[in-house]
């Protein structure tokens, strides 16, 4: 397991085991208690599970805030992340049993749905943190994004220099290649697609144009330009993939974080309502 995902196995699954025991305990209590009117959130066990769930949600939120600004070293971050993930998953069991499997079109079920949304998005986050760092290093094959950008800039200068020795069609291709965009809108960033890559398009044009050149000197320059464009297209694709991986590792936070805060507000309403109309 890579260093990025080792929070899952932290201290030999310490938090996994703790969460599993907690779930087991909760399931046993839930099964053993058969109150009048059926099991639901309004029984004493229901109140207990709800209280436990609420405390966990608040604590996990605080952990989520805390581990971002941690300065106590990698081990601390790893431990708290591990706790955050496994206790978060245990909330599925605790909150579902709290509901007693009673759902409806109301604020109470909304709170449950929001919580599940937070957990699911967090699950995607775990998936992203396990999967993408490896893909990122594979993609960069030992180079840094900064290095690739520098190389791309150097290629730009080379392209301009080469254009001086080549017909206008090549200058057009070079001009297009200079406009190559890395990044873009939300969906472009997320997909990391190079389908409309300007460098790749310029490369195709330059290749087509090179067929028509007869002058030997120009042929040499054209070959050089094609090589440069080809390298630029490759660098651009890598940079886009890199951004896409980064975006995938970030995007779930736009659900995870705001929905968590929305969930806490909805939980305030949930608890208030339950005891307002007791």
């Amino acid at each position, binding site marked *: 397991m890579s260093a990025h995902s080792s929070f899952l196995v932290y201290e030999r699954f310490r938090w996994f085991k703790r969460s599993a025991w907690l779930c087991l305990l909760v399931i046993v209590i839930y099964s053993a208690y058969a109150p009048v*009117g059926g099991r639901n959130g309004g029984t004493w066990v229901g109140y207990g599970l709800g209280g436990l769930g609420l405390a966990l949600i608040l604590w996990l939120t605080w952990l989520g805030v805390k581990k971002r600004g941690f300065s106590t070293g990698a081990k601390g971050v790893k431990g708290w992340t591990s706790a955050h993930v496994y206790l978060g998953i245990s909330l599925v069991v605790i909150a579902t049993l709290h509901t007693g499997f009673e759902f409806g079109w109301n604020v109470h079920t909304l709170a449950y749905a929001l919580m599940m949304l937070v957990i699911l998005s967090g699950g995607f986050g775990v998936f992203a943190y396990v999967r993408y760092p490896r893909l990122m290093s594979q993609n960069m094959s030992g180079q840094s994004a900064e290095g690739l950008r520098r190389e791309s800039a150097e290629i730009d200068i080379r392209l301009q220099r080469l254009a*001086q020795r080549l017909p206008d069609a090549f200058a057009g291709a070079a001009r297009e290649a200079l406009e190559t965009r890395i990044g873009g809108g939300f969906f472009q960033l997320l997909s990391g697609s190079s389908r409309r890559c300007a460098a790749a398009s310029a490369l195709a044009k330059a290749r087509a144009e090179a067929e028509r050149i007869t002058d030997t000197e120009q042929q040499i320059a054209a070959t050089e330009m094609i090589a440069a464009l080809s390298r630029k297209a490759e660098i651009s694709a890598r940079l886009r993939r890199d951004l896409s991986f980064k975006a995938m590792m970030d995007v779930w936070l736009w659900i995870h974080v705001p929905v968590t805060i929305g969930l806490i507000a909805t939980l305030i309403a949930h608890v208030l309502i339950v005891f307002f109309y007791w």
Partner: protein
Amino acid sequence: MRLSLITLKRRPDSEDVSRRETMLEADVFRVGRGSDMDVNLPDVNVAYHHATLSAGPGGLRLEGVGGALIESGGKMVDSVALRPGESCRVGAYEIGCEAPGAHADAAITLARVEAQARAYRTPQRIADTLPSRRRLSWLLALAALVLFIAWPLSVILLREAPSPDAVVVNAMVAPEKAEERAGSVATLVALGTSLAEGTEPPPAPLFTPMETLWLSGPMSNVHAGLAENCSACHLRPFEMTTNEACLACHAETANHFDVAKHASAADDPSLARCAACHKEHVGGESPIEEASSTCTDCHANLKAVASATELYDVSDFALQHPQFRPTLVTGVGTAVDGALLPTVARAPLDPKYPLSEQSGLKFPHDVHLNKEGVRGLGRVADKTWQMNCESCHQPQADGALMRPIEMERDCGYCHELVFKPDNLDVLRELPHAKPVEVQEIVHDYYGARVLEGGLNVPGAPESARRRPGEAIGLAGRAEGLDWAAEQAELELKRIMEVSLCGDCHVAQASAEPDSRGRTVWTVQGALLQRHWMPKSYFNHEPHFAMDCVSCHAATTSKSSTDVLMPPIENCRDCHKGEQAGASASSECLACHVFHADPYGPMSPPHGQAMVDRRNAAERSTVVRATQ
């Protein structure tokens, strides 16, 4: 023409501009990107041979080649005249004209204008393309608080909660029609207006649609009408629903026990609340809890909560439930007015010690259920019928219990009450259950026949045998009537003891004759038990597929004193207890009710005080729950 080409270059990080002069000599200078151009503009936006520079009027002339354009004064043009002090642009290069020095005919400056940094940077992270998480968080949280708390509360808090001392009666009011209901905005506007004008504030709506979102679950069907009237039950904020709210409608519901007499139960608030057993907002038909644990929580060890109880402990129908103890007539007394006073007692149905009941009726079931058939009586004495249980026992309209036996309807077809004295052709119908009238009829009959004359009966006096119409002398009359009274007494003894009444009842002759010299007969009416187990409600209907005799051993019963009720073991064949998987319903409520009113240990209605107060309140001021 000698051209001085001055390349201007700004040093990085400084305002200094370096000038490097190159001298060119030709008539026409080629300007372009190409490395073999006279004036080389290494920019991809410049054509290979973009333009030609030549002498022009008052200076120089730059002319595009092959349609290439030059930017001058913000316009794209084919050619441009350059006089000292003027400039134009080709690609990234600014070409300016200067007054030439002595060594040149013309001078131009070349300066690369760095492309201005784009006004926007291509977003590199999704953070640049999405609203900030902080803003989204605030938005969601605020939306939740406003929608789910502020909006409904703004209306709810306008409602007046009844004070704890108020008599809350009849909270069930018809729900407001949705289209007639004031919306929350309208309510707030009306409230604001009333505050501004100093008038009475308007009544708050009973319900705001946003409260629907507060419902923790669906109302039961019987309370569906309250779904839009939360405050009917939730009287005051942050207070558990009170019995007071329930009793506002259910004041007449009987108590199961008198809370005041059971200190331990009274101390336990969970027992004293209606809502301890009746859970609302879980849907279903009604908030009645069927699980036996509701009862057995106490009844499994009742002494613990009611030390003086004489009830047996029950934990499960199959495992721990006392033997059935039917209520039996064990004896009969007679009141001063002649009414029968049955003595009743309960005794367990132990198959080893058969019970007997004193109903006062002589009735062998086995004779009536004889497979050979039963011979009729009276005018149908020559016929035989096959009888079965339904011949006499018919269920009442709801099918639960058997309708009471009525002699005329259920027995009378065979047990015709007619007497037909010897050698007399005429029948007389006798009324049932009226022994005095029977005696009068029989006496009247014989007296009348003697006075009529023409009696051809052995032993009859001469005066009775005289031809009809012949006068009867005083002596003959006295003799005849003496004989008639004697015959009537004999006939009555037969009727009472053997043939008609005596067939089924026990009749007793008075020790002394009455003032008319007649024996007075009393016949004990039958005291048929209709409900042997009045603390349960047995229903025959669901048991329709069973034979009557599988529970009631009537075919072998020789006497009406036999108690044909089945013991609990019979029921347990199918009702195997709540814990058994495949079983007929065995929970307490299958046979018993909790709020049972007419029976001894049960106390008067829960809400007796409430009923009294309501009756008083109806005469004075009625405080309604929500109005």
